[in-house]
């Protein structure tokens, strides 16, 4: 039984003149307790929109058109805002935003900022809240005696740790981390990723890691969803998706990424550019850039189909059998 189940979620941003940015379109996945899902895609593919849809932290012009998100069988997408705020948001599903190291208020002490978040939800005294903060800081590897420091006295990596600690303050079940390491240096990035992995294992957290970096997602995730143009193009176990990629987009993406390991080989770029979410092509959204596209790809749009090995793919070429990468594909 999955802990978090996302089913056929559609979220569009409304523009003037009845136009829509179709940021999240028919997205489904599930995350079990203690498991990690990596959501990978390029900028503008809807991965951050997906995160704020689950958190229901949407701007005014965003409309959830359909779909269900259930946490422990409890529907949370249509739940009244007050109940969501009281029971779910931050308490059971928490989030670390992109550029999180810059979210701390520079003129307030780190401990005070963390305590404020705890007091707002738990109704505990400042003293108790500060005690919790000390514990949280040591969980993320910061000396608790630094609680009275200001953010500028922390390094970038420590600020990022502080924000992660704050996200964990109410002991959530699910942590969504949106690009948690962009703008951090290489060594610090590795330290933060290691911390997230340890927290996942120690606290039994379910982790949704959103990143543009295939390498990070491949090292961190049990399952992977590859997003393209607001949709999931391919979804499955990380081992399957990265070692046996099926969707032509995943295949091209993996051959466009250099690696420090192994011999040098010429990288293959993907021709064209990702589509504009306000003006999407008919049919398969990747077809205009796809080397395998046939006329039938142009309409109607393929759906996400389950294959025999448990991998999901949204591609006629795979489900109907005319794409062949020269390796066995379980097309059932």
């Amino acid at each position, binding site marked *: 039984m999955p802990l978090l189940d996302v089913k056929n979620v559609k979220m569009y941003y409304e523009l003037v003149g009845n136009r829509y940015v179709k940021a999240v379109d028919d997205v489904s996945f599930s995350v079990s307790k203690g498991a990690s899902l990596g959501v990978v895609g390029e900028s503008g593919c809807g991965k951050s929109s997906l995160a704020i849809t689950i958190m229901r932290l949407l701007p005014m012009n965003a409309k959830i058109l359909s779909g269900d998100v259930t946490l422990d069988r409890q529907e949370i997408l249509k739940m009244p805002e007050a109940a969501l705020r009281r029971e779910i948001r931050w308490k059971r599903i928490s989030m670390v935003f992109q550029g999180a190291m810059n979210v701390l208020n520079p003129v307030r002490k780190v401990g005070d900022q963390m305590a404020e978040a705890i007091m707002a939800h738990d109704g505990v005294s400042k003293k108790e809240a500060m005690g919790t903060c000390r514990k949280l800081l040591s969980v993320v590897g910061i000396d608790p005696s630094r609680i009275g420091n200001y953010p500028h006295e922390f390094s970038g*990596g420590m600020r990022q740790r502080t924000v992660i600690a704050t996200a964990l303050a109410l002991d959530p079940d699910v942590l969504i981390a949106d690009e948690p390491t962009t703008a951090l240096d*290489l060594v610090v990035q590795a330290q933060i990723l290691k911390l997230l992995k340890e927290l996942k294992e120690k606290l039994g957290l379910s982790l949704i890691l959103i990143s543009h970096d295939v*390498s990070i997602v491949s090292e961190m995730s049990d399952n992977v969803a590859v997003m393209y143009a607001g949709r999931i193009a391919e979804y499955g176990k990380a081992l399957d998706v990265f070692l046996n990629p099926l969707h032509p987009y995943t295949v091209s993406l993996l051959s466009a990424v250099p690696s420090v*390991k192994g011999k040098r080989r010429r990288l293959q*770029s993907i021709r064209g550019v990702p589509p504009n979410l306000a003006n999407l092509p008919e049919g398969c959204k990747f077809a205009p850039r796809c080397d395998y596209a046939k006329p039938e790809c142009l309409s109607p749009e393929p759906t996400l189909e389950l294959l025999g090995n448990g991998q999901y793919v949204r591609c006629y070429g795979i489900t109907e059998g005319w794409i062949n990468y020269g390796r066995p594909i379980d097309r059932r």
Partner: protein
Amino acid sequence: MVDPLIGVKNLRKWFPVRRGLLTPKLFVRAVDDVSFSIEKGKILALAGESGSGKTTTGKVMIRLIEPTSGKVLFNGEDVTGFDSKRLKEFKKQAQIVFQDPYDAMNPRQTVFQILQEPLLVHEMTGSRDEATDLVYRALEDVQLTPAEEFTPRFPHELSGGQRQRVAVARALILHPKFIMADEPVSMLDMSVRAEILNLFLDLVEKYDLALLFITHDLAVSKYIADELAIMYLGKIAEIGNPEDVVDTPLHPYTIALVAAVPVPDPRAKLSEIPISGEIPSPINPPTGCRFHPRCPIAQFPICREKEPSLEEKVLGHFAACHFSNLLVEKRKPEGRVSKAN
């Protein structure tokens, strides 16, 4: 050996830090005694974390800033001594591509105007036809074709990859011999990153350019470079063939950096990072070896007291570490790097 086209020798750039009138002057030692050279048709990647001095080195090389001491040698001549007339001639031959092409272009100029500007500055063209011809050829060089489709566009009408291509075209239009590219792919999406890297590889070959490629990404460095230099706190820690440097590092800092790079393979576990902490302030860099406070193999007192010089440890592979030989011995027989701890 071929004579290098451009190089730096004992380059130093110290930025003074403003303090009170009576307090002693302090300096940020952004670049501290750096030497290397690049031949025609070769790419040198300068890699390191932020604050390691890689961008400052690049800026000094095209004389956007003046060095505190040391030389920048271009065709054997010291550029730092050039008068304004010769400097202008040098700047025509040494061009730059910035990290964010959107920030580096005037949003109110068309692609044509952007590309024409260097021609006007250097009085390269007699007529408008001649300018048009050069602009078109530069666009074709970066595969933005048909060129007439791109010339009337504004930067916001281009995709990220196309914008970076225009930036490369602008650097190429004066037929330079040297290009300094500062993190030119870090703002780009993954699917277009490969095409810009391949474009640089093709252009370097076609025009016999010397390219200084500044990046924090070791995977990108290994892919593009003929020579890779790792910088730490204003100094070169290690330099050599990129495959040697990445696959068999001779400096503990490089080992840590390589271990920190995620690889696109789900079977790879997160590596143990053998170092802790973050890069210290370059205002008061540690004594002796600058890496010693974070180094897992440091021995005292030597590493705290004596600064290691950059020495050739293996043919063509230089490292600045007193104990590189320990790293070679620790290596497992199959050539894999063992953890240094």
